[in-house]
């Protein structure tokens, strides 16, 4: 059997004593387009960040293609949420894409002409080659997401982690991003995408990680998209549980309820 793209054992994340992610165990096979799904505040971004070690989990073991993050660093591409970026930063679109190869280059070496050509090629893939010398702020929402996709492509990774690449994009951008992801998949890459759109996930994704603080389900789309599981992640029952658990934390920590 091939090693899993991602294996997580007992991942727990707390933030100021309240539990964000509770005891998550899962395995994802290689070559899948994986959606990380769940209602607002369910801990999707936290899941992504703690998996990559950007947030320190309370406990848990994560392995990428059977190895630790440190060993697999060069095989992992990451795309942050659009809002977390300082768009006024003095930098051109091409510069941003070139950042994708910095990890490969290591210390001291600089991007060469061939890297520039490569970056242009990545921009072409997302239809942004005509914008290469623009300041990054002079782009629309969808275009901003596309240049970040180009940077991720530039990383030449096997595993891709993308935080909401579809948020705030226009239709044509959405199509371009989706095509790019499909192409990556056809090359055997595994792509993890934090997503909101249930319908699109059902249509175009292979695998789903359904979260609501704890793992509701993880598996092939057909197995996870059942009424019962979706209801458990999004429905009334879950809300009641959430409220109760929040009350527990406020009471036991002696905070005043708002």
């Amino acid at each position, binding site marked *: 059997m091939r090693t899993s793209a991602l294996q997580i054992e007992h991942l727990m994340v707390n933030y*100021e004593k309240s539990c964000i992610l509770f005891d998550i165990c899962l395995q994802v096979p290689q070559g899948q387009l994986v959606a990380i799904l769940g209602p607002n505040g369910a801990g999707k971004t936290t899941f992504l*960040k703690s998996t*990559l*070690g*950007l947030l320190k989990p309370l406990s848990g073991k994560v392995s990428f293609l059977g190895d630790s993050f*440190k060993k697999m*660093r060069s095989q*992992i591409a*990451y795309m*942050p949420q659009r809002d*977390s*970026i*300082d768009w006024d*930063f*003095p*930098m*051109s679109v091409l*510069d*941003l894409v070139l*950042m994708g190869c*910095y*990890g490969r*280059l290591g*210390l*001291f070496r*600089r*991007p060469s002409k061939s890297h520039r050509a490569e970056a242009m090629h990545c921009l072409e893939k997302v239809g942004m080659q005509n914008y290469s010398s623009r*300041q990054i702020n002079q782009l629309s929402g969808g275009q901003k997401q596309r240049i970040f996709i180009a940077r991720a492509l530039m*990383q030449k990774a096997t595993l891709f982690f993308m935080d909401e690449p579809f948020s705030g994009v226009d239709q044509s951008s959405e199509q371009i991003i989706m095509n790019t992801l499909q192409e990556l998949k056809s090359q055997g890459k595994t792509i993890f995408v934090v997503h909101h759109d249930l319908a699109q996930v059902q249509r175009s994704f292979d695998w789903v990680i359904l979260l609501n603080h704890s793992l509701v389900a993880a598996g092939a789309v057909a197995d996870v998209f059942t009424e019962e599981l979706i209801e458990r992640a999004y429905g009334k029952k879950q809300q009641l549980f959430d409220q109760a658990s929040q009350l527990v934390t406020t009471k036991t920590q002696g905070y005043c309820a708002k």
Partner: protein
Amino acid sequence: MTFLEFFTDPLLRGPMLGAIFICMSTSVISVFVYVQKRTLVGETLSHATYPGVLLAALFTLLFGGTEPASFVVVPCAFVAAFFGLWLINRITRKSAATNDSALTFVLASFFAVGITLASVIQAVAPATFQKIRLFFYGQTASLGDLQIISYALFLLSIVLVVSLFFKEFKLLLFDRAFTRLTTPYFALFDSLILCLIVFSVVLAMKSVGVILVSGMLIGPAVAARQYTHSLVKMFILSALFGAFSAFFGNILSLYLSDRFLISLPTGPTIVIIAQSIALFSLFFAPKRGVFFRKVRVALFRFKSMQENLLKFLWAQKAAQPFSALSSRLGISALFLRIILWDLSRKAWVTFDQGYLLTQEGKKRGGHIVRLHRLWELYLVKDFHVSADKVHKSAEQIEHILTPELEKELTQFLHNPLSDPHNQPIPSRAEVSYAE
């Protein structure tokens, strides 16, 4: 005094070259501070050195000295600054306080401790206090060859570090999370930036003073940012602004004391010049400055008015008197005169018992009408806006639509002949003109 003498004269070269080198150094570092949006860090660290300097004076007194030596003051300032840094980190991590409140807390409390110490020393040993004061406000005149060399070395090492690790710094400044994932030595570069800030604050003590160095850690970068979208250029510009401020700060204070017997302290003068450059740039930078934005708005308004006039004349059969134009456009007589002067200069409008369009003017006026009516049709046809509500939007867009958009609209609407109000749309051939 010749220009070269500023750099060779044994008395003048210390303040001049020393100030230029240290100001260039702080200006390069100011780019880090500015792009990371951590301007408060410079401010806080400079205030954090304050009690350190005073402790140095206290030690000197305790050991029987009167004049605090640099080799005592500088290490003490370092320790104080790093202690401040450690405290900021500690507070942000261990409490619910935000980074900003931790910074202000450290700034205020260290400064308060400093002032308390200062008043003690002033009471006990006024002579020592006079000496130590120089470190707060700087005394550029006291810079000698030793400072030239040490500042030059500092500048050199900063330039070396920044150019060697440019891509790492760029990545770190822009996208921390991404840097953590891709760069194994992430934390090292992060601390390196903070160390550079501390070093520049402490080293700049003798030239511009601990308090004012925070100005040099903001101004040059703010100014540089207004002129460029590239980080490399920003570093270079910022360093140039720093050098410029140092040079003219020196010249100005020398000149004023020479000619008018006004003795301006050089350090503060340098800072004032640097901040003035920043302020000037915020207003007058060609692309980002407020002033030229207003100018562009005014130019657009002027062009719109001209086009409105052309449009009006286009629709008239007879020549129009000045009063008719004035009441139609509703602008001041002077403004209208200027517009008409410009239009006749371009030979689009002539005067023959009233104003009328030339052949060229007719094309221009017809073109505006064409854009107006195309837009109206587009809104009605594709957005289902009712025909009586589209005029206002078209009044604005007619001045804005580019030839490319016009072409697209024409194709999109299948080269239409009349607008929603059944008015004819002038054809492209009829109104096309050479630019």
